[in-house]
């Protein structure tokens, strides 16, 4: 029974996501479309299962939603701050800087989400990963104190992602 379940739904979260995306694409909620979305959501993960050798085992959905809300809020606040910097600060006064962030996260999905978060919050863009994935290179638009930027990212985002994925 368990084996059948694993074969039918190798990636349950992906199944739900595909069904939701399909329903949204149709722009109307009708039983037929939801059922078709669920069928797609079952077929596509089975066909692509061999490319998902090690998926994240446990996803805490509640914490993930809290993390999304936090990131949304940060994006809005940081946008206003950076707009202010762009409009009022002269180029000569700005201190663009590289920040190196040593990573505690190991799973590729978590590192991808962290890098995406860093890019989406204005003022920082994640530029590169070291060759074995132990540190992340981030470019900050205006940072006097690179250590403070590093500590903030580590404490605010990485710690939460660690709780979600591990």
């Amino acid at each position, binding site marked *: 029974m368990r084996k059948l379940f694993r074969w039918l739904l190798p990636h349950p979260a992906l199944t739900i996501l595909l069904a939701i995306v399909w329903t949204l694409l149709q*722009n109307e909620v009708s039983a037929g479309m939801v059922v078709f979305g669920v069928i797609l959501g079952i077929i596509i993960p089975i066909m692509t299962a061999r490319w998902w050798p090690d998926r994240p085992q446990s996803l805490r959905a509640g914490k993930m939603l809290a993390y999304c809300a936090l990131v949304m809020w940060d994006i809005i606040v940081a946008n206003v701050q950076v707009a202010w910097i762009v409009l009022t600060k002269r180029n000569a006064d700005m201190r663009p800087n590289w920040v*190196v962030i040593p990573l505690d996260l190991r799973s590729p999905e978590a590192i991808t989400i962290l890098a*995406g978060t860093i*890019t989406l919050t204005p003022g920082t863009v994640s530029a*590169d990963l*070291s060759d074995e994935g132990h540190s992340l290179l981030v*470019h900050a*638009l205006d940072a006097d104190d690179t250590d403070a930027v590093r500590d903030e990212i580590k404490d605010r985002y990485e710690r939460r992602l660690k709780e979600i994925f591990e």
Partner: protein
Amino acid sequence: MTLQIIATYAIAISLLIGTIFTLVAGIGLLKLNTAMSRLHAPTKAGTVGIGAFLIASMIHSWTFADQSFHELLIMGFLFVTAPVSANFMAKVNIHRGACDPLPAPTNDDMWSTLNVPEADLEISETET
């Protein structure tokens, strides 16, 4: 009737917020002086600017026309793809040397963009 008036004001405010942030992103693109700094401007337009436009579109479709969910999808896809393109542009800047010298990574030997395999060394040297 009053609901429609409130919705109209909400749409107008969202559109204004969106235009302001898109304008600031454009100004930033013109004003900032290094390639890496300029990369910061479009990431702003891509988040709050477009987000405000989509909220305006969503309010409009729910009060005056057929309900539409497409804006949620647009926002989702945009938030997933924007960091990838920003990352590619950053990598191009690193390859071209159009940025300050990189600091050393803490635990590893080198950054993956600069990690060129032996066989390709000749190509990368002739190009730069």
